[in-house]
């Protein structure tokens, strides 16, 4: 399990997990799960296009995911955000289908783009992933305060001179970078699951943002490494284990929130049933 090619898998998947956990905190905070889903899935069109004209896959992925981020930002300013995301996504997928139809032997690679080929990572793939990962995390550090401000209190951010639309676009570009680096190695499904499951759990364990980001990265790392270990033993796809474990983390987070809330109600002496009824009326 620790032989040469497996070491690459541990290292690369570890980098991806930490970055996804950190970026994912803001994905969950801003409620932009759909965009985090659409960018990696749609970026595969870039990979198909790159293989068609004989360029490095990473270039195609990067170009398409950034274009997708800008497209979502541009369309989203003029219409509903979910509609803009959906339309950008389907257009990218449509282009991907077109590129695929031009080149005939791409089918196995689509499978690996969507579901990942973690166990076949070469040593030469570590460097680009490490560089792009560092850039994404550095961008998050720079954007940390305005991102947090516009996510939690958009109005206050605007009054302080932070432009929400510009921050949104910048965030989408960071998201695009983080996903395009991870796509060829771990697959669209895996990175998306890592971006929502662990951060959702981390957010329900603590209210402090910096702590939640750290916790989220740690949980994501543990999830990926556990998934790789089990996948190595069973030969089943890594994506299956990551998807299931992420869902499990989300469930644990929900249970933690429910438990804390019930304790708070008990402490405040407020009958839980009454507030439940109030909540259902609010729905």
């Amino acid at each position, binding site marked *: 399990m620790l032989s040469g090619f497996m070491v690459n898998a541990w290292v690369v998947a570890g980098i991806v997990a930490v970055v996804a956990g950190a970026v994912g905190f803001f994905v969950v905070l801003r409620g932009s799960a759909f965009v985090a889903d659409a960018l990696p899935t749609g970026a595969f069109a870039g990979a198909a296009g790159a293989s068609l004209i004989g360029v490095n896959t990473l270039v195609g992925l990067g170009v398409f995911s950034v274009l997708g981020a800008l497209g979502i930002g541009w369309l989203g300013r003029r219409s509903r955000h979910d509609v803009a995301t959906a339309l950008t996504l389907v257009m990218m997928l449509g282009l991907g289908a077109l590129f695929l139809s031009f080149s005939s032997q791409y089918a196995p690679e689509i499978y690996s783009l969507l579901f990942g080929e973690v166990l076949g990572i070469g040593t030469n793939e570590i460097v680009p992933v490490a560089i792009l990962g560092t850039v994404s995390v550095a961008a998050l550090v720079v954007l940390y305060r305005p991102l947090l401000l516009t996510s939690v209190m958009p109005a206050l951010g605007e009054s302080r001179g932070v432009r929400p639309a510009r921050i949104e676009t910048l965030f989408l570009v960071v998201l695009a970078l983080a996903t395009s680096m991870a796509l060829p190695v771990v697959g669209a499904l895996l990175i998306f699951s890592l971006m929502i499951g662990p951060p959702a759990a981390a957010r329900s364990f603590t209210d402090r943002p910096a702590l939640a980001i750290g916790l989220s990265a740690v949980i994501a790392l543990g999830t990926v490494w556990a998934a790789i270990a089990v996948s190595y033993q069973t030969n089943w796809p890594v994506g299956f284990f990551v998807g299931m474990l*992420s869902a499990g983390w989300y469930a644990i987070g929900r249970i933690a929130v429910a438990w804390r809330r019930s304790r708070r109600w008990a402490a405040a002496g407020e009958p839980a049933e009454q507030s439940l009824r109030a909540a259902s009326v609010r729905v």
Partner: protein
Amino acid sequence: MNPIVRAVFEPGFFTSAPVRIALLAGGMAAVVSGIVGTFAVLRGQSYAGHALADISVTGGSASYLAGIAPLWGFAGVGVAAAAAMDLIGVQRRQGRDLATGIVRGAGLGLAALFLYWGTTSTSTTGATVTVLFGSIFTISGSTAAVAAVFGAVALGIVAVLYRPLLLSSASPELAFARGIPVRATGALCLVAVALAVSLSALTIGAILSTALLVGPAAAAMRLTSKPGLAVLWSAVIGVAATWLGVLLAYDSYYWPPARQGWPVSFFVVALVLAGYLLAQFAVTSPAGSRRDMATRQDKASARLNGAGA
């Protein structure tokens, strides 16, 4: 035959059986998706619609493993996923996308497992592509018939729920006050979306069926503020995009670079997006559109209130 007509419709377009089935099944999927999609867009469930289409890949791969017709897998898993989304709370705005994403991640994880089993036992990677991108030209007649039944069920749900669904989408509080079971209505709407998506997943592929669900409906809601008219427009735009896409795909057989035809899904998606952008920029300027939306929504709810009183 007139040379212009012959240039537009390549020879054999009207006599080929696959084309006829493609037009029929594709048109049906477009009508169902267009009508159901209006409610999905109105309720802000574009992501749920897309996730359900993705998850139906799981059903497709499961039925491929089990050796049953894909449509049953598509529909069965779609409805199960819709139920799961409703159970963990997609009806609340806050955290809804997150819950949808979690269900999608788990569903696709299962799909990875099924595809892995399928591809290792039969060593065909073609299954992945078939399930993900579908192909409108290889639908069998019997599949189209079952698809029609599913489509009819989805339309039936929407027709029965039409008024309560509109009211609970526009103003959940008001609907609750009127005694409409908001939660059950939403769950049934999601089931209708799942059925519509599984139908169109077979025609233009699981992932690209999002296009028919969201695009025509969003365009239609730009064109009109009346819900009934929006439903009609949405179906018309969807059918037009699908049929034109089939025609272009048929014609593209002789186009470069390879003489094998461009994919239908590309044409349909491009046409849907073009329709949306046209509707958006033709009707209003970007600055005015937001104000327009607000007044339109006010008008729509006022009309509903008037009708309900």
